[in-house]
């Protein structure tokens, strides 16, 4: 690592001019309008209001990213909003559809369990070996079907790699909101071996799902069952399952993020995050450390919400495989040594160009997917307010 103390401290990124920022935001504004106001998209006034608010919100955040040169700070507004509004819209829809968020066995038999992306890695081995999907849903290409979610996940993953976890995962926003609450972390030293947690959970759950022929993570370990839908407790086993969900949610998504200012569920436990990390290998966008400017202050390491930087990785000028490209380290670096990068290009050569290209791709998908979830949550709130 470069430790040259004579390097001048770099000035913070200057504000971009308003006109230039507006011009750079224009494509996202047009995209937002296209996503939220395409013909036949809304029939009632509440949906139109929610869509307009969401389009404005997403466009304003992108404008601020362009104006200030900061990414994480503004992305976090989107992500926290997504994390808060997802359960609002989802739970409301479930209660309207079936009167409860506890999914009864007859709904599973009918194949009406909404499919989220978390069990995707659990389906692969049983599907490859027996052509069977071990999930009580249906293979529909319409909303909530397994095929629809797999299609969405695959498309976003090809574009963003692990960026899914920072621009699409509606669960991650909940713990990011918790991590944003305290000014300082109460627990600062975290054993780096916790980083292996998600890989261990992934391996164990993939094998267990194959052996038991059920989505074992969904049945036993998913913390987010506490805010989405859970197996209706019809016996003692169901009660134990729901107790585990609530404990894991309280511990990993509420308490630990408050104490550590980290996304602890993502960092220590999330099997999907580990699985998604593999796709960082095929993603063209990444974050690098320009060693000619880096002074080993480790501010970036402290800022990373998912333990995706270590002293060793910084010394190698790169993030760990688990980097979700949230931009926290880039924003935090006082010397602008942490930069957005396109594979194949020279490090720190026009990093703003790399940032822009990445953000156009990431924000377009965030507007499309996360934006629709935010709008749904807003519709629910407007429904209650009205």
């Amino acid at each position: 690592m470069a430790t040259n103390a004579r390097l001048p401290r770099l000035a913070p990124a200057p504000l971009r001019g308003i006109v230039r920022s507006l011009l750079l935001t224009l494509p996202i504004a047009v995209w937002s309008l296209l996503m939220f106001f395409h013909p036949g998209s809304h029939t009632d006034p509440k949906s139109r209001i929610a869509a307009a608010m969401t389009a404005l919100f997403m466009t304003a955040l992108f404008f601020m990213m362009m104006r200030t040169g900061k990414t994480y700070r503004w992305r976090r507004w989107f992500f926290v909003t997504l994390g808060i509004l997802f359960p609002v819209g989802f739970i409301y829809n479930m209660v309207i559809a079936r009167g409860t968020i506890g999914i009864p066995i007859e709904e599973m038999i009918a194949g009406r369990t909404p499919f989220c992306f978390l069990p995707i890695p659990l389906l692969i081995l049983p599907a490859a070996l027996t052509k069977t999907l071990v999930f009580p849903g249906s293979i529909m290409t319409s909303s909530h079907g397994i095929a629809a979610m797999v299609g969405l996940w695959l498309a976003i993953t090809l574009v963003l790699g692990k960026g899914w976890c920072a621009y699409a995962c509606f669960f991650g926003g909940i713990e990011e909101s918790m991590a944003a609450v305290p000014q300082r972390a109460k627990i600062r030293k975290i054993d780096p071996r916790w980083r292996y947690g998600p890989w261990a959970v992934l391996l164990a759950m993939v094998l267990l799902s194959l052996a038991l022929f059920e989505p074992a993570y969904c049945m036993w370990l998913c913390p987010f069952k506490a805010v989405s839908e859970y197996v209706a407790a019809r016996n003692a086993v169901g009660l134990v399952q729901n107790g585990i969900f609530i404990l894991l949610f309280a511990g990993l998504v509420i308490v630990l993020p408050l104490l550590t200012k980290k996304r602890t569920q993502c960092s220590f436990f999330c099997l999907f995050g580990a699985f998604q990390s593999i796709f960082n290998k095929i993603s063209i966008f990444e974050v690098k450390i320009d060693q000619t400017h880096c002074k080993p202050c480790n501010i970036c390491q402290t800022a990373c919400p998912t333990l995706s930087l270590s002293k060793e990785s910084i010394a190698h000028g790169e993030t760990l495989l688990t980097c979700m490209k949230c931009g926290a380290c880039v924003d935090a670096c006082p010397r602008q040594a942490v930069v957005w990068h396109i594979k194949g290009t020279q490090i720190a050569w026009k990093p703003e160009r790399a940032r822009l290209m990445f953000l156009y791709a990431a924000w377009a998908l965030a507007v499309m997917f996360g934006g629709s979830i935010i709008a749904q949550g807003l519709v629910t709130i407007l429904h209650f307010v009205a």
Partner: protein
Amino acid sequence: MTLRAKLGYTAAGLTVLAALLTPFLLIGSFAKGFAALGLHVDEVYSGGPKVRTIQNGAYSIAIHRPVYPHMLQNEKPFVQLDWSPVSALPPHVSDLVDVDGDGQPDLHVSFDVPSNPKAPLNVNVEPLNSRYEAMQNAGKEKYSRLIVRVDDAILVRVPLQNK
């Protein structure tokens, strides 16, 4: 600019293009491609394909192919029978069912049909063939042993004897 850098920028441009095509082309194409893989939902959930239907006056009984659990799956093998439409069922159903189609009844199935669609169901199954297990006042214990109402049908799953 080196060739690697040019390739990098080209790939980045294509990635941005892929992002823009995602809602219009990619999601649908990938979803259709996935659906075309010929995968099916585990029959422990879906109940397996229907093989025969017995007409019994105004209602019918659909008989599914027996389902056998995989590996360590914590279920018994079972056969699913569907009574439908619910509106045509009498207040108390008591049917002899020929499951295997050999002309001899295999099961005597009886259950009440409450007018409230959300009311709990209970079923009694008396096996007339040693292949099937008896069920006394069964509700929704397991996937392989239950009675539930799904849309306009009442589904009964009868466990098979382990052999």
